[in-house]
């Protein structure tokens, strides 16, 4: 086993793979630009973008830092609600509302994270889940602002004004490209974070916490910062969801939405750059297909979860990457 590992370490990845890794954001952008042209349902394509971004934010924490959070619905939901509330109740312009959603995700992440990182290991999943339920009840009860059980309605956005151009947001294709531009920006930021020294520290903490601490890194701070960054991605995804659906259902906050991020990440391959997106795409496509002939989609979600955990822990993209490196 030990010799195997040494052998792995000495091997150079193929130049092709290295090139693809270096230009991963550009390649992904290219793909995302062509994607709606081959995809028959534009609304589904937008959902894949949004949930892909959500899973991406989750993956930063789970895949790269190694912390399993079951409270990401609170970050996603806070982004969606705050963006929606800014538009519905205060008439903010759309770009500011998106910014508010992103900040809301970070703020909620800061509060949940500050409490949850005080505990270690397996506690983390329980505490984040409990705190997200708390956020759920708070939003549920603030009926005047959030619409309570009925969700927030009327997040209507007909036109967006981009540098003086009126773009029809109701047109599926232009809506896709507007949301896509945010997603590509997020991918680029994430890629830069991961390639930065801080990104290396994140993975170091995952691999060996004690050694990272001994090397002089403040492990708690790294965890909190990563959680907040994760909150920014999820908050942005939530804000885009509010604009896309033009309503925010209360289920966005429910802990099953947290499970969704876990599922997509696991399915696509946790700790891989494109895994969450592929997971989100496969998950949502399957959901669309299966829902046609049965209303018991949850059963398949559960089964997929168990199959992934038992037989397929690297996920789709993780397995592909492994094959390519071998």
């Amino acid at each position, binding site marked *: 086993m030990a010799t195997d590992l040494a052998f792995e370490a000495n091997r150079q990845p193929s130049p092709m793979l290295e090139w693809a890794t270096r230009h991963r954001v550009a390649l992904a952008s290219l793909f995302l630009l062509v994607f709606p042209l081959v995809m028959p349902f534009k609304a589904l394509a937008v959902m894949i973008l949004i949930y892909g971004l959500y899973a991406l934010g989750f993956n930063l924490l789970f895949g790269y830092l190694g912390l399993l959070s079951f409270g990401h619905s609170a970050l996603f939901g806070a982004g969606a609600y705050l963006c929606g509330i800014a538009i519905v109740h205060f008439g903010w312009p759309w770009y500011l509302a998106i910014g508010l959603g992103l900040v809301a995700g970070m703020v909620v992440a800061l509060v949940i994270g500050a409490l949850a990182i005080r*505990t270690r290991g397996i506690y983390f999943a329980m*505490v984040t889940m409990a705190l997200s339920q*708390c956020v759920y009840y708070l939003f549920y009860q603030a009926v005047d602002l959030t619409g309570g059980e009925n969700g927030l309605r009327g997040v209507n956005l007909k036109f967006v004004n981009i540098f003086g151009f009126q773009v029809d947001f109701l047109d599926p294709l232009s809506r896709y490209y507007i949301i896509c531009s945010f997603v590509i920006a997020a991918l680029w930021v994430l890629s830069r974070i991961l390639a930065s020294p801080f990104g290396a520290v994140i993975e170091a903490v995952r691999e060996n916490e004690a050694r990272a601490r001994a090397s002089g890194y403040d492990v708690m701070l790294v965890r909190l910062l990563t959680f907040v960054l994760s909150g920014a991605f999820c908050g942005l995804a939530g804000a885009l969801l509010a604009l896309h659906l033009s309503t925010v259902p209360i289920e966005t906050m429910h802990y099953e939405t947290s499970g969704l991020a876990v599922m997509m990440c696991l399915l696509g391959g946790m700790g891989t750059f494109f895994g969450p997106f592929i997971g989100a795409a496969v998950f949502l496509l399957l959901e669309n297909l299966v829902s046609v002939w049965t209303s018991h989609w949850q059963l398949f979600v559960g089964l997929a979860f168990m199959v992934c955990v038992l037989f397929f822990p690297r996920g789709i993209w993780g397995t592909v990457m492994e094959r390519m490196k071998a």
Partner: protein
Amino acid sequence: MAGLTLDLIGMQLFAGVALGAVYVLLAIGLSLIFGMLTVVNFAHGAFYMLGAYVGLWLMAHGGNFWLCLVLVPLVVGGIGLAVERVLIRPLYGRGIDYPLLLTFGLSYIIVELVRITFGKAGFPFDTPEVLQGAVDIGVGYFPLYRLFVIGATAVILFGLWLFLERTSFGLIIRAGARDPLIVRVLGVNVSRVWLIVFGMGTAIAAFAGLLAAPLQGVIPEMGGTILAEAFVVTVVGGMGSLLGAVLAGILVGVVVSMTSLFAPEMAKVAIFALMALVLLIRPQGFFGRAGLMS
């Protein structure tokens, strides 16, 4: 606040203890399973719900409540045994997150299967006739069934205590929670112990679900909400500690019933505030051992 008397507070305190009894049973199962197997059972709420539904089915097929109290834990505990043996056992040694994710997926399946079998709508669950009515407990008339819930929980706790402290198998469980490796070296079949502990945990969860059924009715989603609350109890009490689970369960029950008296809209949020407070002051919980989680 007119009408707020000491008697009312006393009554609410008792109601809190009855509510807390259900939390205690759930948290004890979670804690027992975690302490031994280091598995956080996200399907615990689903087993709780399953307990109520199996009870419902038995009642509809001519069983009575007392028979249910015995049969429900046996049936659901049996399912728990199968789950551990077939699904969770392959995951030992593969990282602490995998069993958690597996049980999370399992809870989806259990809930959906119950929805398919019994429908999405909920059912009322009749309080057994002998336990209807109320008794005078000094500060006012208190529903007899809630007293029964407190009593039944006390019996289960006492039985569990006897089992863990006074039997040789209990000794193995306690030793296994401290150091499974040494216990294995001593020639004990630890896998079998883990199997039984998981079965016991799920059986107690099912028992709790059955006890709670007459109080709040039966719906497929009943396990989801209470799971988060049971997590709060385990975090407050300290994971792996049975005494902690008992005290924290009662405390959480009392906090819920007291806030619903004084500020009903805050009742749902209060217990999470309590957890936040405990995490700030004592992250390992009341009786949790520091370093258990690492």
